C-alpha cells in the first residue's frame, strides 16, 4: 500500500502517477503485485493517516510506502508494521525515531538540488556574458531550516568552487511572497550589474519573478527558481526565469514502490537513503512528458 499525506492535491497526484507506472513495470515480474493508493482528506489529518496505516497492517499488506504527515506521530504505527514484518519505505518527509524502523528513506536531496541550480546558473551566465564572473544574489526563505541549509548551502558551495561569481547578498523572505518581491526589487536596484539570481523556494521564487518582470529585467538577468507551481511555469514560458528545479514527486512514487518491491518481494537489501531527484525545467523541456510528470 502507498499511504500519502493527502489524496487531493496535484503534488500527490504526481506521486500516484509514479506509483502506478512502477506497478505496471513490476506486474510483469510478479503478476500478483498490486498497489493501493491511500491518503487522508488533508495533509494534517494525522490521526486518520495512523488509522490507515494500522488497517493496512491488519489487512496484511506486503509492504508500505508512507509519506508521514508528522515527524513523530507515525512512529508507533511504523514500529507496529516492523513488528508485523512489513517493510516500510518512507518518502518525502523525515520520520524521527530509530532508523531501523523503516527500510529506506526517499526524498529530494536538497544539497544536490542546490548544486544543480548553481550549475545551471553558472552555465547560463557563461552563455550570456561569456565569462563566469560577476555578481549574483541569493533570495532564500527561512534562515537555518533543514531544507534551506542543504539547498542554499549546496548552491553557495558550488558557486564558490566552480565559478568566479560573487554572491553580493543573501536575503531571507520568511517564505512570504510580498517580502520576496520587495527584497528582490531592492537588490536589483542596488546592483544594476547583477548577472544572476536564485530564488530558493516557491513563494520566494514567485516574488522574485515578479520583481524581475517589474524591473524590466526579464531575460536580461539569469534567474533560477525552485519548485513549480502555475505562476512559476508562467515565468519560465515568458522568459522571466530561465530554469526551475522541480522536486520529483513522480519519482517519489515510482522509486518508492520499486524500493518497497525490492524489500518485500525481491528480498534485496535496499539503500537506506535514496535521492528521488528533481528536474531542471526550462523553456525547452517544459512541455515534455518528464516535466509534465513533475509539474503541478
Amino acid at each position, binding site marked *: 500500500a502507498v499511504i500519502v499525506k493527502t489524496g487531493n492535491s496535484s503534488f500527490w497526484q504526481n506521486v500516484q502517477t509514479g506509483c502506478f507506472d512502477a506497478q505496471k513495470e513490476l506486474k510483469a515480474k510478479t503478476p500478483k503485485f498490486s498497489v493501493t493508493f491511500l491518503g487522508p482528506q488533508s495533509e494534517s489529518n494525522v490521526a486518520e493517516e495512523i488509522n490507515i496505516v494500522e488497517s493496512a497492517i491488519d489487512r496484511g499488506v506486503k509492504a508500505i510506502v508512507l509519506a508521514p504527515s508528522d515527524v513523530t506521530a507515525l512512529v508507533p504505527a511504523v514500529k507496529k508494521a516492523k513488528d508485523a514484518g512489513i517493510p516500510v519505505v518512507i518518502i518525502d518527509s523525515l520520520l524521527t525515531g530509530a532508523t531501523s524502523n523503516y527500510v529506506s528513506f526517499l526524498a529530494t536531496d536538497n544539497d544536490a538540488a542546490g548544486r544543480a541550480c548553481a550549475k545551471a546558473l553558472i552555465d547560463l551566465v557563461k552563455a550570456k556574458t561569456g565569462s563566469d564572473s560577476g555578481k549574483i544574489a541569493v533570495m532564500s526563505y527561512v534562515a537555518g531550516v533543514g531544507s534551506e541549509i542543504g539547498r542554499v548551502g549546496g548552491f553557495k558551495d558550488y558557486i564558490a568552487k566552480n565559478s568566479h561569481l560573487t554572491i553580493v547578498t543573501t536575503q531571507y523572505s520568511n517564505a*512570504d511572497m510580498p517580502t520576496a518581491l520587495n527584497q528582490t526589487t531592492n537588490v536589483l536596484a542596488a546592483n544594476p550589474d547583477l548577472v544572476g539570481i536564485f530564488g530558493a523556494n516557491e513563494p520566494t521564487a514567485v516574488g522574485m519573478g515578479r520583481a524581475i518582470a517589474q524591473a524590466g529585467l526579464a531575460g536580461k538577468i539569469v534567474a533560477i527558481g525552485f519548485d513549480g507551481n502555475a505562476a512559476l511555469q508562467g515565468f519560465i514560458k515568458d522568459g522571466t526565469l530561465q530554469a526551475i528545479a522541480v522536486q520529483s514527486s513522480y519519482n517519489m512514487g515510482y522509486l518508492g514502490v520499486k524500493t518497497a518491491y525490492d524489500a518485500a518481494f525481491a528480498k534485496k537489501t535496499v539503500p537506506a537513503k535514496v535521492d528521488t531527484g528533481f528536474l531542471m525545467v526550462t523553456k525547452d523541456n517544459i512541455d515534455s512528458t518528464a516535466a509534465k510528470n513533475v509539474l503541478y
Partner: protein
Amino acid sequence: MAVDRFLTFGAVVVLFAVFSITAKNFFTMRNVLSLLLQTSTTTLMGIGVTFTIITAGIDLSIGSVVAFTGTVAVIAAIAGVPIWISWIIGLVVGAFCGFLNGLMITGLKLPPFIATLGMTFVVRGVALTITNANAWPAPDAFGALGNNTLFRTGPKFPGIPYPVIVMAIVAVIFHFILRKMRVGRYTYAVGSNEEAARLSGIKVGRIKIINYIICSTLAGLVGVILASRMVTSQPNSASGYELNAIASAVIGGTSLMGGVGTVGGTVIGSFIIGIMTVGLTMQGTNYFMQQIVIGVVVILAVAFDQRRNK
C-alpha cells in the same frame, strides 16, 4: 501636532541622508518611488491600526485579513467578476471582518487583544480552507492596481505607482477624519476616558465598531493591493504584518494606553521602518546584522522622541 512630530520626521530625513550616501543607487528617482511603493502597504495598515489603538484597543488580525481579502478578491476575479468589483469585494470582506471584531469587543465585551487574536486564527483558517493552501494566479488585469503608475514619462521617471497614490489619499482623508471630524474626536475621547465619553453621550460601542471597520477595511485594501502586485492569491502570506503596522503607529507616537496618536506620526513611523529595510538591503548589509541595526534604530528613534517630549 505637526510640530510635535517634527523631530521624528528628522529621523526620517537623517536615515534618508545616510542611505543616500552609503547605499549606491538609493537616492534615485526610480528607487525613491520603489521605496514609496514598498512602504505604502505598511503605512495603510498602520493608519488603520492607529485608529484602533487610539481607542485603547488593538487589532492583531490585520495580517490574516490581508491574506484573506487578497485571496477572496483573486477568487472573485478568477470566477469572472469584473476586476474592479473583485477589488471592492476585497474591501467589503475586510470591512466585514472589522465589523465582527467590533461586535465581539463591544457586544461580548472581549478584550480587543483576544477578539482580534481569535479572528486571526479564524480568518487564516478560512483562507487556507477555501484555497486548500494553494497560490492561484489571477487574471492579468488584476495586476493593474498594484503595478501600474501615473504620470509615467519614460524610463527616467517610471511614474507614481497607484498604491502610493492610494496611500497619499488615504492618509489625507483619515488625517482629516481623525483631526477634523466628530467621529475622530470621539475616537480620542473614547480612548482617553471611556466612561467620561459614555457619560458625555458618545455612543462608545458604535465608535469602536467604526474604528475596527476602518482598520480592517484598510487591511482589505492592502490585501487587494498586495494580491494585485503579486497577481496571485497567497492565503499563507502576510502573517506578522500586524506587528509592523503596530510598530509604525507606536514609533509615530501612538500610545497603546489609548487617547494619543496621529496619522502623520504613523506615516513617519512606517517610513522609518521602510527606509531602513530598503536602505540596509541596498547597502548590502548582512541580513542578520540588518536585524540588529533595525532594532537599535527603532529604539534610538523613539528614545530621542521621548527625551524631547519631557
